[in-house]
């Protein structure tokens, strides 16, 4: 068997870069810290590609199945003989795929940021945090056990927090970073509970034994039940809660749009391509457990994903901040991936949804990173996030225009670009296993095409906005990643994904199903067509539609008031009726008890301090008379 122990370097290199740049960055020239970060990531990327090549082409399959390989493992924290937390590297098809996704996008973002962040205060800090994030994300995808995944899960949460709050002088960035951290942390509480229940029932943290189809873990699962569902199902639903928080699924999605306060490359890396798909990855990682011992949990995944994708797509149609449109689009696409997992079954052709979901994760990472980096180039040129300030930019930003158009065509599902294949496979899986979800996803596909081309036309066509100074094309460090990712967006669809990734590790053959593909192409074209009519030229008709929808439009524009509902629930209900009584109890009962002990001691010592008179003879008298009394007492005791 091929030796994979070198893979442990892939996460460690960014860690060293983080320590080096983080500790010494302020002494270097900014560009040096940027180059060190980029070089570190380049090495990690090369190693990842090498790993993928070794794994898929040079490693023997047993019974035609890709094996899970434990490349490196060490006991990190041992509690008892059986209960220990390990750190290690697990190589299997999805972790290798994620290695490629994470290192590729991260490398592109590192290169892009050299141009984008030029002249920003704290350039070295930015690169240090990017490396920290890359380390945590790589550790997460390579995790050998669910507890290691949880550790790195929190680490990516911290890096996300640090990077959203990069402009910490801006109050909105600070509150956005806090919001992201608190919401995901709340979701992670569910994840932790899920881990505890799951490992208590199965007696293991380890992914290999957890997901072994014939292993004890899956077979013991269906035992006790609670509220009509088995304990296993409950634990997996809790685990999914963590995944839903990180992946911004409804109703834990509120942090993602605000997270756009961070620098745009960060949004591309963390909040589009890698960290937010960690939830999908988590479900995929535990997929055999979901599919075999908790099909109800999988149904929850499917419905949450489907609803989130519809919900986000509707909101995306009304937003004006281009990054927020993309944020809602991300949420919607992750919903697709969840649907893909949710409608999938375990094994063979029935596992199409699983494969499609991973496929879509891959292509989505490419085109969504491209969209965000393109948006960054636009913001860089226009100095505004709002599409109201844009229009007619195609003349000024030719490269950005072409690459952005490619990304829009890709996400809209135009034939023979990558997302066409991956999205259609999700739709096919839904078509075969869950008809209502299929219809919803079809509608969302149309909405996606509409809002993406609304964005595209509003930015690059529409009216000719007058700019204070002529927008200019971005430098080569920014356009190179755009071109690279555009090529990836076009061609990544031609990777025969089902040959590499499948629910049970056995490669299978998947074909485009034209009965699904043709309607989805039509829906996509209709969406593009409507956007073309409404936004190609400056016209009042879109305003008229908005006005005719009245309060409905306002509700959508305000994201269905979910932020306000959460604020109401937390500030008005939880703070007033739970936090205040608890705080009162702490202040008056707990602290009061401690204070009264101190008060009693103080009062007693004040009373008896008179004994300490300073008169030596008094002390001597007390001493002698006590000695005499004790003597009498003992003589008396002795005599009876």
């Amino acid at each position, binding site marked *: 068997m091929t030796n994979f122990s070198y893979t442990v370097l892939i996460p460690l290199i960014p860690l060293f870069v983080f320590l080096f740049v983080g500790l010494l960055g302020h002494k270097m020239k900014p560009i040096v810290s940027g180059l060190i970060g980029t070089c570190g990531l380049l090495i990690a990327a090369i190693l990842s590609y090498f790993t993928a090549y070794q794994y898929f082409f040079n490693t023997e399959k047993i019974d035609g199945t890709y094996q899970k390989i434990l490349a490196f493992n060490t006991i990190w924290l041992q509690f008892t003989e059986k209960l220990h937390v390990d750190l290690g590297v697990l190589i299997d098809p999805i972790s290798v795929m994620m290695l490629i996704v994470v290192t590729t996008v991260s490398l592109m973002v590192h290169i892009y940021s050299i141009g984008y962040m030029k002249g920003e205060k704290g350039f070295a800090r930015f690169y240090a945090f990017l490396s920290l994030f890359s380390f945590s994300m790589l550790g997460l995808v390579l995790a050998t056990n669910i507890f290691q995944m949880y550790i790195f899960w929190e680490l990516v949460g911290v890096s996300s927090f640090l990077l959203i709050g990069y402009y910490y002088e801006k109050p909105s960035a600070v509150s956005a970073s806090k919001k992201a951290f608190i919401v995901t942390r709340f979701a992670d509480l569910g994840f932790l509970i899920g881990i505890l229940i799951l490992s208590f029932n199965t007696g293991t943290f380890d992914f290999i034994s957890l997901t072994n189809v014939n292993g004890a873990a899956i077979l013991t699962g269906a035992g006790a039940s609670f509220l009509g569902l088995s304990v296993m199902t409950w634990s997996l639903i809790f685990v999914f809660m963590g995944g839903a928080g990180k992946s911004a699924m409804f109703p834990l999605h509120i942090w993602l749009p605000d997270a756009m306060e961070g620098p745009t490359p960060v949004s591309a890396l963390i909040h589009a391509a890698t960290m937010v798909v960690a939830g999908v990855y988590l479900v995929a990682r535990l997929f055999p457990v979901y599919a075999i011992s908790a099909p109800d949990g999988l149904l929850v995944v499917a419905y949450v994903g489907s609803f989130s994708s519809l919900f986000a797509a509707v909101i995306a149609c009304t937003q004006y901040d281009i990054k927020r449109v993309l944020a809602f689009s991300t949420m919607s696409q992750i919903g697709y991936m969840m649907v893909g997992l949710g409608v999938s079954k375990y094994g063979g052709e029935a596992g199409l949804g699983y494969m499609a979901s991973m496929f879509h994760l891959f292509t989505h990472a490419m085109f969504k990173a491209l969209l965000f980096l393109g948006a960054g180039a636009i913001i860089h040129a226009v100095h505004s996030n709002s599409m109201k300030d844009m229009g007619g930019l195609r003349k000024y930003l030719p490269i950005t225009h072409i690459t952005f158009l490619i990304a829009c065509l890709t996400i809209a599902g135009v034939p023979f670009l990558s997302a066409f294949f991956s999205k259609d496979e999700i739709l096919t899986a839904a078509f075969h296993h869950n008809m209502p979800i299929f219809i919803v996803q079809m509608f969302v596909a149309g909405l996606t095409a509409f809002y993406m081309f609304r964005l595209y036309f509003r930015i690059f066509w529409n009216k000719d906005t007058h700019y204070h100074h002529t927008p200019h094309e971005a430098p080569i460090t920014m356009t190179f990643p755009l071109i690279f990712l555009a090529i990836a967006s076009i061609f990544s669809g031609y990777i025969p994904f089902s040959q590499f990734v499948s629910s049970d590790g056995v490669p299978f053959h998947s074909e485009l199903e034209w009965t699904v593909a043709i309607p989805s192409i039509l829906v996509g074209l209709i969406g593009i067509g409507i956007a073309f009519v409404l936004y190609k030229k400056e016209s009042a008709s879109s305003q008229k539609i908005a006005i005719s929808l009245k309060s409905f439009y306002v509700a959508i524009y305000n994201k269905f008031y979910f932020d306000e509902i959460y604020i109401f629930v937390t500030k008005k209900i939880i703070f007033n009726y739970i936090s205040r009584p608890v705080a009162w109890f702490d202040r008056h009962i707990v602290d009061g008890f401690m204070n009264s002990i101190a008060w009693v001691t103080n009062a007693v010592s004040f009373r008896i301090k008179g004994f300490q*008179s*300073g*008169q*030596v*003879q008094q002390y*001597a008298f007390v001493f*002698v008379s006590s000695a005499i009394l004790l003597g009498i007492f003992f003589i008396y005791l002795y005599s009876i």
Partner: protein
Amino acid sequence: MNTGIPIEYFLVTATLMFFAGVYGFVTRKNLITMLMSVELMLNAVNINFLVFNRYLFPGQLEGHFFSLFVIAVAAAEAAVAIALIINIYRNFQSIDVEKTDEMKF
């Protein structure tokens, strides 16, 4: 070795001396007098050592040596105590024990 004097005579004398010392130590205000009272107590103890040694373990000498030891310590103690008293006098212009009450609460 019986001298004919009963042991109680010695013990009563020693007890009276000891409590005279205690009484003096507690009641007299002059530090020198208090020091003398302490010497009185020590000597009462010395008598006890000698008497018990003589009457209970006539063949042995521990009691004698111990009383010699106590006398030596008492001499040293007197030297230290007088040095202290001189310093107290320099600080307080008095050797009245009731005036040296700075070390209180």
